[in-house]
């Protein structure tokens, strides 16, 4: 058990040491996961909203496929992107394999279904009145839909935090397409795997703690953002 205590200690020491390599790894982790989150959000929120609101043949099927893809194993996502970006793959010429861009692409494959699926759910639970009120006040369709998204923001922020959690914690995909190259594609999670493989449990824990602290800070920022835009943060009173 002292390994865990030692892991905490090591985590703190690691942070205090300001080891340039660790800083670089941390920044790359951030860069990859946040880029992937951004792309997933930019694609996923509109897609989810569209699927929630537009009734067309095959809509249910697509929604179910998106829900299913929430269960896409990271290794599989990694493998698919690997095959596509590999020299023999259709996009081999782009020479993206083992670069941070490849890692972002693979993570978007994981993040997009999450954001789209959860956003769709959040929008679906909104009420017809919101849309009606908006268009009767002269809003264009687009603005009315944006208003529905605004009303659904709790659920959409939940979608983003969930996706961030998954992306920053994920190792299968980034390992596969990034290759865990020191100084280039090594991120926090692949470092953890490497350290456990080398039997350095407490260092692995230490890096894990850094990752969790990072996640905590980002979550706080996202939630702050949410708070800032809406003052009346009511909860149900249980009396």
């Amino acid at each position, binding site marked *: 058990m002292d390994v865990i205590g030692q892991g905490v200690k090591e985590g703190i020491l690691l942070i205090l040491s300001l080891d340039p390599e660790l800083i670089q790894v941390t920044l790359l982790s951030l860069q990859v996961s946040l880029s992937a989150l951004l792309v997933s959000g930019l694609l996923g929120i509109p897609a989810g909203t569209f699927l929630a609101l537009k009734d067309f043949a095959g809509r249910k099927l697509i929604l179910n496929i998106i829900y299913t893809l929430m269960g896409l194993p990271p290794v599989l996502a990694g493998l698919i992107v690997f095959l596509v970006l*590999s*020299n023999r793959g259709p996009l081999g010429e782009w020479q993206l*394999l083992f670069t941070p861009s490849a890692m972002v692409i693979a993570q978007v494959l994981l993040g997009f279904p999450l954001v789209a699926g959860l956003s769709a759910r959040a929008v679906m639970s909104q009420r017809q009145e919101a849309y009606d009120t908006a268009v009767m006040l002269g809003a264009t369709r687009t603005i009315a839909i944006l208003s529905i998204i605004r009303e659904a923001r709790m659920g959409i922020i939940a979608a983003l935090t969930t996706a961030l959690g998954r992306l920053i914690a994920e190792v299968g995909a980034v390992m596969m397409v990034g*290759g865990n190259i*020191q100084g280039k594609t090594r991120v926090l999670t692949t470092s953890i795997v490497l350290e*456990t*493989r*080398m*039997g350095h449990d*407490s260092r692995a824990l230490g890096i894990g703690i850094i990752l969790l602290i990072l996640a905590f800070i980002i979550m706080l920022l996202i939630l702050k953002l949410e708070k800032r835009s809406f003052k009346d943060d009511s909860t149900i009173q249980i009396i």
Partner: protein
Amino acid sequence: QQQEEPAPQQQAGDKAPTPEDPQLTLATTTSTQDSGLLDVILPDFEAKTGYQVEVIAVGSGAAMSMGESGDADVLLVHSRAAEDEFIAAGHGVDRHDVMYNDFLIIGPAADPAGIKGGNDAVAAITQISESEAIFLSRGDESGTHKKELSIWRAAGIEPSGDWYNSVGKGMGDTYRMADEMQGYTLIDRATYLANKGNYSLEPMVEGDELLFNPYGVIAVSPEKYPNINYEGATAFIQWIISDETQALIAEFGKDQYGQSLFIPDAK
């Protein structure tokens, strides 16, 4: 307890000329990375030649399929039969021996199969199978796994049963599991020495010729993939079989474990 992280050597003075394509991708087995060997020797290569090496550490099988698809420029692997096949199929060129280390069978101090101290691998595993003592197999078609299978073949045994655990993992992880399960396993000396401080398993059988483990370096075929960095691969091969590098390899691990982890054998 904690293994020192080998600091990358800073080469002072003369700067090497930057090659045309300085990016070189090396696909290798996890053992060369996990043992720390690459961290020690690669900085010398980069300083001398100006190449930047990107190390992808995977199983021997995956490393070779990466070579096959042109996603790596040069391979450092240990799986002799597969390597020859690889060359024969035209995926690679310029194979050279680099070094070897050896395997040993490790197991719990209690030694339920009673094999401790021997140097006959076949006899040892026969005893393990007869006493149905826990045995862990890498089970991942890695060089180590293939070696293990060849020993079973030599013993004429088809291992199966509750005692035989095929875990499908890398060496470091298998070592960890064997320690937890207090079972026997076949392990390469480099990984064993690098991690033995963490675990309680003891060497049981070593020194059998069957347990010899050669590493080879192969350049990926430039004819198949004109856009790979063949020039860099050649430089890497020349460097790793050079006398100076071979000496570096021979030194590696001596200060920490009192013995070399890899024995250089380039001709």
